[in-house]
């Protein structure tokens, strides 16, 4: 058992993380019954043990603070982020999450659709009153320009094809 207050604090923190992990594990196990339950402890363990070792070294051996400590802290954070990333990736890969996200999006569309339409109608009416072309009219004009450009390109393609055929050996000459 830890023999100084600092280590006791760390041990307590470690226990709390493990208990939290167990709770998380139970929650995920219930949420996705068909797939095997995850073991987030496997993610926590490497970086937590490493962090513990580094802190113990500093606290118990009285090592002077050094740049190594910074590097270890950075490594600790990297592993912590990587662990979270893996946990989140697994959680987001569940059918439950996909369904939840789909419902959220649908809810958003149900609200934003009518709001967008009403706002567009109001803006169009205001612009029409001022004699200014609406966004829809400008967009339609731009679409027409793009279509004209597309037709010119298509004509150019055809002319190119005809010219290529005429330049082929054995092609009829005028």
């Amino acid at each position: 058992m830890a023999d100084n207050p600092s280590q006791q604090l760390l041990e307590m923190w470690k226990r709390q993380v493990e208990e939290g992990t167990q709770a998380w594990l139970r929650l995920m196990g219930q949420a996705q019954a068909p797939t095997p339950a995850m073991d987030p402890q496997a993610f926590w363990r490497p970086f937590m043990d490493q962090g513990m070792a580094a802190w113990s070294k500093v606290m118990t051996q009285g090592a002077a603070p050094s740049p190594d400590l910074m590097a270890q802290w950075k490594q600790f954070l990297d592993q912590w982020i990587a662990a979270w990333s893996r946990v989140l990736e697994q959680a987001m890969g569940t059918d439950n999450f996909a369904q939840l996200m789909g419902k959220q999006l649908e809810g958003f569309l149900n609200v934003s659709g009518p709001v967008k339409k009403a706002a567009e109608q109001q803006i169009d009416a205001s612009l029409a009153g001022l004699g200014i072309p609406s966004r829809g009219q400008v967009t339609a004009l731009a679409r027409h320009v793009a279509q004209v450009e597309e037709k010119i390109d298509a004509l150019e393609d055809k002319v190119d094809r005809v010219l290529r055929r005429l330049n082929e050996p054995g092609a009829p000459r005028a």
Partner: protein
Amino acid sequence: MKDELFTMMGEMPAMSPELLARMRQEAERNLLRMKHFGEMVMNPKEPKVGPTPRQEIFRTNKSRLWRYESRRTIRTPLLFVPNLGISRPYIFDLMPKGSFVEHMTQQGFDFYLVDWGVFGEEDNGLTVEDAVTKLLPRLARKALESSGASEMSVLGYCMGAPLSASFVATHLDFPLKNYINMAGPIDFAHVGLFGKWLAPSVFDVDKYVDTLGSIPAEMVKMGFKLLKPTMDLSTNLNLWWNLWNPEYVSGFNALNKWANEYLPFPGEFFRQWVRDFYQQNKLIKGELVMAGRRVDLREIRCPVLAVGAKEDNIAPPACVKPLIDVVSTRDKEYVELPGGHISLIAGRGASVHCWPKVASWLAARS
């Protein structure tokens, strides 16, 4: 308590010269971190991107074809087809010594880049089929004409791979010399989280497009950020750690600029992209029809290289590799390289692993 803490720390050991030097180095780095942080906040500089000289060869609507300056010692030119929408293509020519384009041109490739452009509301009618059967053939032919070559290699990256594969498999008159799929999904049954989130049971693409018209850049950004929620955290942590290094900071600025410039999708393009590729997986099944022609990947008969990235969560290796199984050629190779979807082609790792591999594979066949 205070005394107890001091006792706990024990006696401070004598410092070795080595440790002292390292502490001094760390202190200097901390000063540089503060200096660079101050510069980034108080006087942010717009990073210069796209350093390789280039010339616009052709332009149609929003799309452009670029030709990059090169010694052109390799006979067969290369057409690079990136994704449409999502992000800007300058990631492939991000900065000096950090550019795929620069590497390839230095190797002597006559390099052409398809820049799909930024589509607006007026382009909402553009479909995947339009991109594959109208835009891409035109851009490819212009590249071929500009190069004066009789054959051309095509490299599709990310979404550019299924688009360009569909193009070369349906335009058999196009003189294709080599084909490369770089981190491009082909079998959408193994496409990872996006495949799950865009499944027809949970994602109503028709409602989405009918309501929004186009897919706004913010929505695209949200989708990609959600794919890796810890990305910003680790990016910022790495920035803090390397903030003392001016080279890292300038690279970060350029990459960060790119990483936050998302592009919208034309509505009909998104509808067909999600429905035909993600939801119905028509490409690998051979059920995709474009302009009345079935897209049959077995029609790809030239040498093929497929490159997957081990950590890719956008196009996992399992959805990239299947191209190799369906093409009709004996000269085919699949390689799986370290990195993620972006770091496969951009960054220090890419310059060590990916660029030399692609360049040497192509050069031997060009």
